[in-house]
């Protein structure tokens, strides 16, 4: 009872009260900083995903214009030409491509069976010399993750592209579309 009177008389905080307040402050500041770091890493991931999508689309447009030479199933490269060497790509060709879903994820059983069947059909078509009008192309762009330096995320783009453009078959193009040629420069 006398101690309480003394404390009230001094009108101050005890050491334990100050330590508790500082501790609360430290915890809340730590949480806020973690939140900040988390938002930055999310922004970084969003930016990288956006770049990956843009690069994949650019690459697809180049394939559509027959500007990617010697294309094959599993064709790989990176985007160092655009100052983005951390962004790498793998191109899968054909319905039965082993690179249909990128390297990071595996096919489901039913999809694997379907792709296997498509692969066999494609091989049979080649044997029978049957040309398909369009070819399915899978573009997987791997980009750095913000979580760790060794981890990568993937963006997969799938599209149908004219077969002559994928195979750079100029004769096939001539056969199909030679009538589209404009006049020469006067």
């Amino acid at each position, binding site marked *: 009872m006398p101690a309480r009177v003394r404390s009230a*008389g001094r009108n*101050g905080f005890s050491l334990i009260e*100050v330590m508790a307040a*500082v501790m609360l*402050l430290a915890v809340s*500041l730590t949480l*806020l*900083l973690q939140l*900040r770091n988390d*938002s*930055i890493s999310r*922004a*970084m991931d*969003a*930016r990288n995903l*956006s*770049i990956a999508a*843009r690069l994949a689309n*650019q690459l697809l*447009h*180049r394939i*559509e*214009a*027959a*500007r990617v*030479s010697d294309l094959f199933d599993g064709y790989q490269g990176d985007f160092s030409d*655009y*100052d983005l060497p951390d962004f790498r790509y793998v191109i899968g060709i054909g319905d039965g491509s082993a690179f249909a879903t990128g390297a990071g994820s595996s096919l489901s059983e039913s999809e694997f069976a379907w792709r296997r069947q498509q692969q066999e059909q494609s091989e049979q078509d080649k044997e029978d010399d049957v040309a398909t009008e369009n070819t399915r192309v899978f573009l997987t762009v791997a980009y750095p993750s913000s979580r760790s330096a060794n981890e990568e995320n993937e963006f997969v783009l799938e599209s149908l592209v*004219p077969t002559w*453009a994928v195979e*750079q078959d*100029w004769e096939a*193009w001539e*056969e*199909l*579309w*030679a*009538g*589209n*040629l*404009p*006049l020469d*420069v*006067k």
Partner: protein
Amino acid sequence: MIHGNRKRRAAAGAFTLIEVLLSMGIGILIMTSVLSSLDYTQRAVDAIHNVIETETAGPRVMQLIREDLSRLAVYDVREYRLYQGKNLSEGPNDADRFDFVAYRRSTRPFHDFVREESVWAPLVEVGYRLRRNPQLYDFLELYRREDFLQDEEPFKDGEFTLLYDRVLNFDVRYAARPESDIRWEDEWDSEEREGLFFAMEIRLEIEVQPRRSKESLGILGANRARLTFEDVYAVPEDIRWVMRNRIHPYLPGADEAGTGDGGGDAAQEGDGPNVIGGGGGGGLGRGGAGGDRRGGRTDRGGGDGSGGGGGP
């Protein structure tokens, strides 16, 4: 004695040195933490701004151009006047321009005073032009031109909308046909060439304006102020075919309205030339669409349906 001390302190209303030092220490600690947190937050905001600037400005312009090009108005083109691309420069900077007609809804309506309503055009003239930035002389301003419907001068006039004001170079090249060693041309006139290009390559170089400091740029690695965006647009071959062969759309029920059949039957046989639209008998020629699209020779001598009056 103790009682006397307390009375003196209470009368003075003061803190001991250790109390003041402790409270100052805590205050400094709190201020430092809060200020550094604020500073980091501000940097993060700036960094996110830079990311938005770097990853939206250029791609947004490229996407807009691509969307416009994908709607080329290839039907009913008079004298192949659909596309005109010119190789120009502004001092040391590439400032190519191109104009064309597109099936796009106009961005601004026209007010019809008779019906008292706003009308949007389903067809517009579109163009991309650059001019020197009057405030920042090192840069160019990129504008999108849009003219309501199509007039006698499809590559002129209209309203201009500023797309970006810190462009360094805007270079466009064209290829007539696909080949391994592709030959790029700097200009394209569809009237002169009587057809469309196979592909066009667009290169846009911009300089983004970092909002704040190098530190903020470093946070997300968005540390490049100068950015180059490249894209290739290959015109779908069936679109080129429609343009090259001057196809006119067939409207269901047009026969009942007494419109001419034109040379459609000749085209459908496929052996002969694709005579499109007939000799101007009716307005709605229906030939060609069913013809052999694999390269039948085009005969423009038969007249085009658009000249027949009343064509769509």
